[in-house]
């Protein structure tokens, strides 16, 4: 019985309308499925718009020697061999077609003199590989996918938040959520669900992520019984703004370094010479972020606790042309003219390498009917993501998830929405209105961000992580007593209360996974275990809900076939 709720029925329900969700929707529609797309914001506002530098695809338009094999090797090396090799292979092989397809749908990338798609250099990529549009590639991509969806008559539910997946026995049957505008509840009946909700950046104080990134999809999947993987690997982008305080964390694209930007400390030293003399500023993000952090910690930071990033040696017109939004961002928000002087930058929480454990070919999770793609899924990036590999990930695995979800739906009988699960989900949403007294949710969010920043940040140790886990338990208790002011109508306090539950749950998965991995690898740096451990190179950490307690176990990293092993040997 779902008579009490506004109910929509689809073959495939997609949660999240960034690059992965949109690409999944397009593919599922192409397969003939009835598709519903749900997103927390207005269509076209997802964090994909913030992707600046480009899409990594071995098209070999600029460097003729590039091919998928080199892209594959770069991705595996960047991920410190914890990646799912098959995902890395598919990604490298399929990305060029996914980019060409975008141009058939109206995207327009910058060009080479011969009229082909131009590609730029980026950290960890052997060749010039990033297809780009100045420094606003993500906007170009999301608008293209959005327009294509509109053309195909995609069914979109904007400003709608899913709070629970509904199951029918072991399999997915749909979802429950609320309309942000009016606060009304809504049920979605679907034979398969694709999660494309992005990451958990809002758990840290200094972050490039918007309010949306509260680990919703990971929490929904975890609660539905799916496995999470590699949750200790959180990427801190080396260059976020550090001053003024209001803009701290806002992304400064890696394209600044890709276009020749130089990092210096307050003494004027080009410090990357110490940390990675070969690749310098274009080393991988984990290395550059740690280097800046170390410079600041050892007293060589700038006035506001960062490093200088300078592109002013390039002609002003060139900088304005290749980095227009950086130029405006610094001029308007920080009173800095980047064509004349350096920017101040420091690490900012940016991306979650871990997420829902999926099958490489189909993006299927361990729960029948549940699929995941993009940042919400794990596997492609291993211990550290290369810049530019995210947009290509969204396209390659968004498409694969949409295809597999449509195929799964076509083979599945109609599902039933269990009314007791829906009612339970409703009760959970209404509970905070029934309490009087108690604190607002904002202080808990503030304290969570401080805790994750200070105790589960770039450098970690056992003592801090244990302290962090203890704090998370306290926050969970505080959250049960939170008070809501006002009505259910567009009420950010109410929305945050629900989002916080996801943030706390998945922050715990991050902290517990980080505690378990007693080595340093990629984005995970343990002061108490500063070295690689070859034993840990063979293991992914898995987090799963075991009768309402968070259980951790290790899973062997899938063995690479001999020809790919050989490839990695050859391309050393």
């Amino acid at each position: 019985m779902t008579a009490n709720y506004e109910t929509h029925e689809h073959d495939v329900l997609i949660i999240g309308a960034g690059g992965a969700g949109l690409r999944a929707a397009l593919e599922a529609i192409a397969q003939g499925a009835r598709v519903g797309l749900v997103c927390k914001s207005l269509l076209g506002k997802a964090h994909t718009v913030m992707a600046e530098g480009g899409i990594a695809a071995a098209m070999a338009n600029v460097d003729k020697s590039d091919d998928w094999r080199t892209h594959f090797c770069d991705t595996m090396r960047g991920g410190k061999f914890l990646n799912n090799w098959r995902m890395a292979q598919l990604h490298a092989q399929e990305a060029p077609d996914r980019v060409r397809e975008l141009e058939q749908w109206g995207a327009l990338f910058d060009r080479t003199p011969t009229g082909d798609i131009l590609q730029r250099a980026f950290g960890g990529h052997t060749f010039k590989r990033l297809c780009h549009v100045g420094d606003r590639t993500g906007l170009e991509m999301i608008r293209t996918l959005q327009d294509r969806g509109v053309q195909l008559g995609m069914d979109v539910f904007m400003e709608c938040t899913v709070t629970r997946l509904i199951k029918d026995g072991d399999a997915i049957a749909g979802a429950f959520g609320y309309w942000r505008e009016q606060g009304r509840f809504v049920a979605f009946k679907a034979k398969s669900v694709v999660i494309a909700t992005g990451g958990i950046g809002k758990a840290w104080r200094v972050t490039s992520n918007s309010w949306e990134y509260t680990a919703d999809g990971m929490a929904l999947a975890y609660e539905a019984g799916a496995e999470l993987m590699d949750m200790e690997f959180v990427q801190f982008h080396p260059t976020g703004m550090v001053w003024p305080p209001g803009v701290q964390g806002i992304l400064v694209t890696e394209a600044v370094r890709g276009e020749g930007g130089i990092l210096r400390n307050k003494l004027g030293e080009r410090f990357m010479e110490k940390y990675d003399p070969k690749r310098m500023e274009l080393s991988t993000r984990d290395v550059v972020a740690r280097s800046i952090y170390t410079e600041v910690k050892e007293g060589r930071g700038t006035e506001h606790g960062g490093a200088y990033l300078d592109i002013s040696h390039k002609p002003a017109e060139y900088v304005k042309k290749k980095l227009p939004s950086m130029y405006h961002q610094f001029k308007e928000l920080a009173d800095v003219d980047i064509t004349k002087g350096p920017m101040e930058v420091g690490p900012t929480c940016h991306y979650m390498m871990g997420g829902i454990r999926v099958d490489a070919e189909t993006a299927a999770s361990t729960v029948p009917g549940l699929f995941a793609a993009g940042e919400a899924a794990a596997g492609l990036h291993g211990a550290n993501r290369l810049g530019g590999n995210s947009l290509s990930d969204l396209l390659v695995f968004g498409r694969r998830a949409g295809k597999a979800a449509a195929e799964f739906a076509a083979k599945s009988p109609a599902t039933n929405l269990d009314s007791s699960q829906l009612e339970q989900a409703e009760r959970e949403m209404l509970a905070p209105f029934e309490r009087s007294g108690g604190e607002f949710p904002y202080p808990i969010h503030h304290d969570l961000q401080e805790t994750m920043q200070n105790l589960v940040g770039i450098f970690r140790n056992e003592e801090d992580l244990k302290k962090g886990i203890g704090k998370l338990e306290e926050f969970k208790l505080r959250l049960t007593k939170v008070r809501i002011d006002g009505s259910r109508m567009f009420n950010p306090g109410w929305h945050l209360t629900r989002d916080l539950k996801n943030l706390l749950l998945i922050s715990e998965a991050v902290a517990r996974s980080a505690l378990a991995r007693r080595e340093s690898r990629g984005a995970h740096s343990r002061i108490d275990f500063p070295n690689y451990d070859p034993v840990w190179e063979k293991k992914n950490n898995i987090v799963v809900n075991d009768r309402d307690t968070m259980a951790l176990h290790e899973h062997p990293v899938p063995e690479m076939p001999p020809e790919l092993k050989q490839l990695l040997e050859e391309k050393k």
Partner: protein
Amino acid sequence: MPDAILRVFRGDNSGGATVDYKVPLAPGMVVLDALHSIQAHQSPDLAVRWNCKAAKCGSCSAEVNGRPRLTCKTRMDSLPLDQPITVSPLKAFPVIKDLVTDVSWNYKVNKKIPAFTPRTDVEWKIDQRDVDRVQEFRKCIECFLCQNVCHVLRDHAKHESFGGPRFFVRVAGLEMHPLDGASRTSLLKNEMGLGYCNITKCCTEVCPEEIHITDNAIIPLKERVVDEFYDPVTMLFRKLRGS
């Protein structure tokens, strides 16, 4: 640093009033930071849309001291802080709650526009100059500030028969794409009411992406419509043919 007073509209589609909030200032603070501070410390149910906080997504549009702005890009120190700063919702769209308006009309207009239609008879090579021309239009972040100030919508409420600057920009991006094979001139003339625009350039003035909406999008589109529908020779030919 001293405090600022924010005078914020609170209410819904049945009406409302402004409420004053005292907010502590910080260096480099923008209006959106001040609104977040109100949410966190005084009024957690204050409804505001925002996403990227870096002027790249176009979610946080509002009228600050009567001027349509992105609140994430409007520095507090650029405003006269000795008097209250008013923050009101966009006027051209119905209020849902507080600073959140119902912009769904825009998404309906967008659906009318025929999508990019790739030409099949050509080699896929594009000159950077052609890319630059179209990219100006594709920079649009859909903040709808141009829609909000356009007098055809704001004062005359021609929402049923007019597309608005945002969608003229979108059509310009398609029409001037070197490899697009479709024509949208009859849509511009008939369904999008391009003729209503009398090029006062209000839209261009408020565009945070500095798109030359009037000069580079609307006027060339008007010329295309004129060429197709009002060219004297073609008109005579049509008359003779009886079509």
